[in-house]
């Protein structure tokens, strides 16, 4: 679906508000929205909510052979997907620019900053290393995807536990989670992206732009910093021209913000760790706020299945045995066979039924369903018994011409997936045959 265009008055309103240092949700210039982090039951699965923007992060690992030029390092693979539910504009074929830009930025932030120790992922040099795969899915788009995604990625990586592995000489033993506790990844530091949106040619800036603000901004500056105030990545897009003081100021602000966010992440990770250790309930089920009226829970419910067997027996006793199906294919010409008879056309008046020669099917309208491939050359005719009346439609649009049976049947154009019901074009005067298309 195309994105609804932003109206001019909304644009002007937003820009005027920003000039007066006001934001639609009441935040200050440097305020972040509420960040909420929740974990799933599996290690490495988390959902991060930055205001209403929601990102799901999932980490998984696999033993593979290493890259040829990096024989002692593990492999990291990042993938961000903009799910169709995040915004109506995100369709499977359509989002390439934004997607590529976000993926590239995430990769630079997490891979080039060497936040994960890839040497520790090596099991047998040159033969077996761990491949860590981080999958991020955007579930709801309310602005600032990159920040939410980077937080989700780093939280998922910190939360993840990989299976323990031991090498004795030539033997490599992989332990299951039941045999030995899985081991966390070795993470040096946590780089987090902070986005700055610029308006009015760089005069005004906002931290953590919401979706509306992103639409009216002139340019975006993304700085990835860790809590030691080291800049991991910096990217400016949109063509705004910034002065050095502005960039320096932004990096200082980013440092402060990242310190706060890192503290929040640490607290969330510790909480989750504590709950798991104490044996309490964890997972997404617990993170649904009970007080919200849009959320509801129900405990385990026993189901009474004692009378199931009697009911089943009753049904079986009353059911009739299935009708015998005997298939007798009739071979018309090499390549054309007929099994059974077609259904009679229920269109038009049934009184005027003419007996036609063979090879005429009834319907003039082909209904094409999504996902059904029409088979070629399947001709259904009502000629099993010559006495059966053949009913043709009374439509004026079609011309029914009967062909000799020894002519090779014309192949039906295969129609592939179409989204809606369509009328098959039946207007051409030259159309010879009306074929009944059977949906498989």
């Amino acid at each position, binding site marked *: 679906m195309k994105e609804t265009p932003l109206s001019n008055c909304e644009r002007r309103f937003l820009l005027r508000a920003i000039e007066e240092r006001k934001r639609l949700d009441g935040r200050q210039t440097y305020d972040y929205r509420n960040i909420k982090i929740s974990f799933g039951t599996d290690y490495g699965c988390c959902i991060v909510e930055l205001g209403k923007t929601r990102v799901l992060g999932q980490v998984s690992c696999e033993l593979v052979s290493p890259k040829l030029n990096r024989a002692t390092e593990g492999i990291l693979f990042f993938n961000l997907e903009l799910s*169709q*539910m995040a915004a109506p504009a995100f369709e499977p074929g359509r989002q390439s620019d934004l997607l590529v830009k976000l993926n590239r930025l995430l990769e630079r932030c997490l891979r080039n900053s060497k936040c994960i120790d890839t040497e520790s992922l090596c099991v047998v040099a040159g033969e077996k290393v761990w491949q860590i795969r981080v999958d991020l899915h955007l579930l709801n788009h309310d602005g600032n995807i990159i920040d939410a995604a980077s937080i989700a990625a780093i939280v998922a990586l910190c939360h993840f536990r990989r299976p323990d592995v031991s090498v004795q000489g030539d033997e490599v033993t992989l332990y299951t989670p039941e045999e030995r506790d899985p081991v966390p990844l070795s993470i040096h530091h946590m780089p987090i992206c902070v986005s700055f949106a610029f308006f009015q040619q760089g005069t005004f800036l906002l931290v953590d732009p919401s979706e509306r603000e992103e639409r009216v901004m002139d340019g975006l500056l993304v700085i990835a910093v860790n809590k030691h105030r080291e800049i991991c990545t910096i990217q400016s897009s949109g063509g705004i021209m910034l002065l050095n003081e502005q960039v320096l100021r932004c990096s200082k602000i980013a440092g402060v913000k990242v310190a706060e966010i890192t503290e929040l992440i640490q607290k969330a990770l510790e909480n989750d760790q504590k709950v798991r250790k104490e044996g309490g309930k964890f997972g997404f*089920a617990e993170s649904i706020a009970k007080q919200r009226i849009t959320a509801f829970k129900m405990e385990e419910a026993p189901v009474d299945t004692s009378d199931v067997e009697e009911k089943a027996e009753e049904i079986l006793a009353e059911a009739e045995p299935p009708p015998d199906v005997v298939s007798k294919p009739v071979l018309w010409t090499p390549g054309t066979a007929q099994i059974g008879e077609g259904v009679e056309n229920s269109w038009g008046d049934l009184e005027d039924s003419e007996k036609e020669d063979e090879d005429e099917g009834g319907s003039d309208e082909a209904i094409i369903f999504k996902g059904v491939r029409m088979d070629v050359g399947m001709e259904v005719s009502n000629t099993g018994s010559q006495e059966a009346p053949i009913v043709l439609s009374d439509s004026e649009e079609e011309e029914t011409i009967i062909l000799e049976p020894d002519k090779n049947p014309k192949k039906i154009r295969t129609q592939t997936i179409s989204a809606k019901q369509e009328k098959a074009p039946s207007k051409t005067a030259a159309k010879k045959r009306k074929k009944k298309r059977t949906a498989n």
Partner: protein
Amino acid sequence: MQSDAKIRTEYGTDSSPQSPGCSLRHFACEQNLLSRPDGSASFLQGVAEKSRERLIRNTCEAVVLGALHPRTSITIVLQVISDAGSLMACCLNATCMALVDAGVPMQALFCGVTCALDSDGTLVLDPTAKQEKEARAVLTFALDSVDQKLLMSTTKGLYSNAELQQCLAAAQAASQHVFRFYRESLQRRYSKS
């Protein structure tokens, strides 16, 4: 019109073996959690992809009153957050709740229930991933809310006629609980008190 459903099938405590006698696992759902789509719901429950999609689509087509919205495309996007067994049933439940949240007119609600038959013929409702793997047959049914009629069934494995009817009857009994859950969660949301 877009209604999206996030599905999580998982339960928080460590996986304990299900006690004999059937029971459904703990449920939770949240509605209207995404701001962009018209309706959304999250449902938690204790190449193949395309066929699953088609099954869900066929179930929806049977209940959604499409005639009231001509020239409209209703898109249902499902995101699996985690899978702890009974995935198809959870997908169906989440779809139904999302459609309700979006206000799509339907002639009935529907729910999904999964049964597993293990090697000695014992019926287990709402199986965990481990139980599904070890079962002889896994059957998933979509049932409607008015008469508990069968809307869709997908099965895997070997089972007899009698076992099929038994599973169906058990699923119908279980669906009562799911519909009660729907009703209560919607009541909670829409009631004035």
